[in-house]
């Protein structure tokens, strides 16, 4: 059991949890993730590590409500526990002094981009960060990103905050202004990473993206997270999650991520139905999840 020592919404549907996980806190490096399972009947899902504190033995994860598990997770509060948290998984980001690096965070992807930006800054890079979101409310970690960036550019799809547009608009402006860019790191929705990669391919700028395929064990055992890189199968959990954006087959990634759409919708509907029922009874969802937790350790 892993205790939640602090839980706080960063934006509607996006929550940050500080979790007691001393082993992971000691080892976490930028670019890595954890897999967690909330209760005995739960699925295993990969989740972003935003930060860690080795001295306190805690890690920060950031979760956006999407399906049943993430919605359920986001009902948990300070003092609740998560049944299983395993990690840190994946290869760490390759941190060195590249020169000028543009770090792009799209939506909740900003949480994964943040530690990489911070490490690149510490390694002596000039870091230009671009944070994009659908609207004002969903822009997260602005303060944190500003602290580790030489410049921070923000866009929203609807223009409700900062500049209206997409992260690629900002990146294109940088390129057009003649900014010398040695590396682009992009973490966010697949469509965003694909668009960034398409833009930088033309400009011949090395681009790293962080992929988020369906995963079970996260140790290379199941092969469910296989992605096509330069026409070859690689496993996002052990060979990634970061890959050369110019070599990624994004179409296959999108297609494979739809594999369980029907089941996911069914789970979500069931979750909503239960939540409605519980609200009517005045029960707290967090209590339900802990009561479903079976015998462990």
């Amino acid at each position, binding site marked *: 059991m892993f205790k939640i020592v602090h839980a706080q919404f960063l934006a509607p549907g996006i929550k940050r949890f500080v979790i007691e996980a001393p082993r992971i806190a000691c080892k976490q490096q930028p670019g890595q993730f954890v897999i967690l399972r909330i209760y005995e009947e739960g699925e295993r899902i990969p989740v972003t590590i935003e930060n860690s504190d080795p001295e306190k033995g805690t890690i920060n994860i950031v979760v956006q409500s999407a399906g049943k598990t993430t919605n359920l997770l986001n009902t948990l509060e300070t003092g609740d526990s998560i049944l299983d948290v395993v990690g840190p998984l994946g290869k760490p980001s390759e941190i060195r002094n590249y020169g000028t690096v543009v770090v792009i965070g799209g939506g909740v992807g900003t949480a994964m981009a943040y530690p990489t930006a911070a490490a690149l800054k510490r390694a002596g890079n000039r870091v230009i960060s671009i944070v994009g979101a659908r609207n004002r409310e969903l822009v997260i970690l602005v303060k944190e990103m500003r602290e580790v960036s030489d410049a921070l550019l923000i866009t929203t799809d609807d223009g409700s905050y900062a500049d209206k547009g997409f992260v690629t608009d900002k990146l294109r402006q940088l390129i057009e202004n003649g900014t010398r860019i040695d590396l682009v790191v992009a973490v966010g929705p697949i469509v965003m990473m694909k668009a960034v990669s398409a833009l930088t391919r033309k400009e011949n700028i090395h681009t790293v993206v962080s992929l988020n395929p369906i995963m079970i064990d996260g140790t290379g055992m199941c092969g469910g997270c296989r992605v096509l890189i330069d026409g070859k199968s690689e496993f996002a959990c052990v060979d990634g999650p970061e890959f050369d954006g110019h070599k990624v087959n994004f179409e*296959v990634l999108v297609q494979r991520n739809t*594999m369980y759409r029907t089941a996911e919708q069914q789970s979500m509907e069931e979750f909503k139905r239960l939540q409605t029922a519980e609200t009517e009874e005045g029960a707290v969802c967090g209590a339900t999840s802990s009561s479903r937790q079976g015998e462990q350790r």
Partner: protein
Amino acid sequence: MSPTASKSKNPLSPKERIKVPRQLMPEQPAEVRANNFDEVNLGYNPELAQQEALRCLECAKPTCTDNCPVGIDVKEFVQRIVIGDFLGAAAKIREANVLPAITGRVCPQEDQCEGKCLLSKKVKPLGIGYLERFVADYEQRMGTHIVPNAEPTGKKVAIVGSGPSGLTVAGDLIQKGHKVRVFEALHEIGGVLVYGIPEFRLPKQIVREQIDYMRQMGVEFETDVVVGRTVTIDELLEEEGFDAVYIGTGAGLPQFMNIPGEHLNGVYSANEFLTRINLMKAYKFPVYDEPMLDLRGKDVAVIGGGNTALDAIRSALRLGARKAYVIYRRSDAEMPARAEEVHHARQEGIDFQMLTAPVEFLSDGKGWLTAARCVRMELGEPDASGRRRPVPMQRSEFDLPLSVVVIAIGTTANPIVQSTTPGLGTNKRGYIQASEETQRTTRKGVFAGGDIVTGAATVILAMGAGRRGANSIHQYLTTGEW
């Protein structure tokens, strides 16, 4: 090798013993079990077990024991069954094997103990696996007797991976008085016993009971630890005070065929398919959250001819598949699966497409699998494995309509531990180098065994390595000599 009758408690003469037929294993009828995940074999009752035990010729030099990777004293435990001392029989097995209820179910006995049984020269071999399973289950029902551990030695051993190899090392070392802690990457203990082998062949309750027994012996388990990522081998040795480490992480990464269409939705590795079913209980969706594709009324094929392939396709059948095929590029004779599994699969109606191999997976244009394009093969000259090489036949191409394909053609080494442990030698294929006698690696204090050393093999071979590893670790800890 002549039968000895001197101290025998067996009332039958050797000639009479040969006349006793091998006692059939009671099993669920094929048409019933094809629709459920309950165990196929139901187990002997005491009468059947004693009747079967009477068949043992009690050879002076028992080749069954010589052919057992952990060296179980078969003759002695079978004799104890003859006189009705079932708990004594269990205790005898436990001297060599900490997981008898498991090996009794999943060992390829026909290649080991039973394969060399003297009876098999004339009649069917002694049902050693069935007898082992019987006494293990009997002992479990009666309440397992915990053998006291030796005096504490003050030494601590870390075991990486809780599969059959690691559990064997843990059981052996705790008995010798060492402290033992087992690290497991997944959320459940048991490795391939829980994620790989299905319920109908090895009920998870059996695995849990064996692990509870080890807990009672004093073995500590820590789940959710990926050694190499969460903690390194060096940290275990230098910072956490372990005196030795045994690596039993298993074979790991599933191999794919590198043919077009392998990324289509509907194409699984056997590891993923079985993990969803066995570990994550996806077949109980939506009670369990982990999903899998709905197989009801669908046509499903597995590629490969090993135990994993049969486990996968028989699971698909139980999940409602309309047609369930095994596609194997060689012939029956070369199939590596356990004989009993092949027999059971045929009874259940699995369609074996032998001497056949897929060359491409076809899609509906929207990313979903619709068929496997296959070719027929014929056997040519023997290859490096000694088996006749399958060669594609000209103009034999045909399309087999399928909704789901499971690829079960083997695994490659998982690199996580090797790549994070400086000085740990590996072979060309990425497996850990370890001595065949002592399981010592190239790193002092670090031992390895099972699939991570040999490549994918069997539960019992991994346990055999565990047994040698435990003896070798004990020697290292008591002498300090490397």
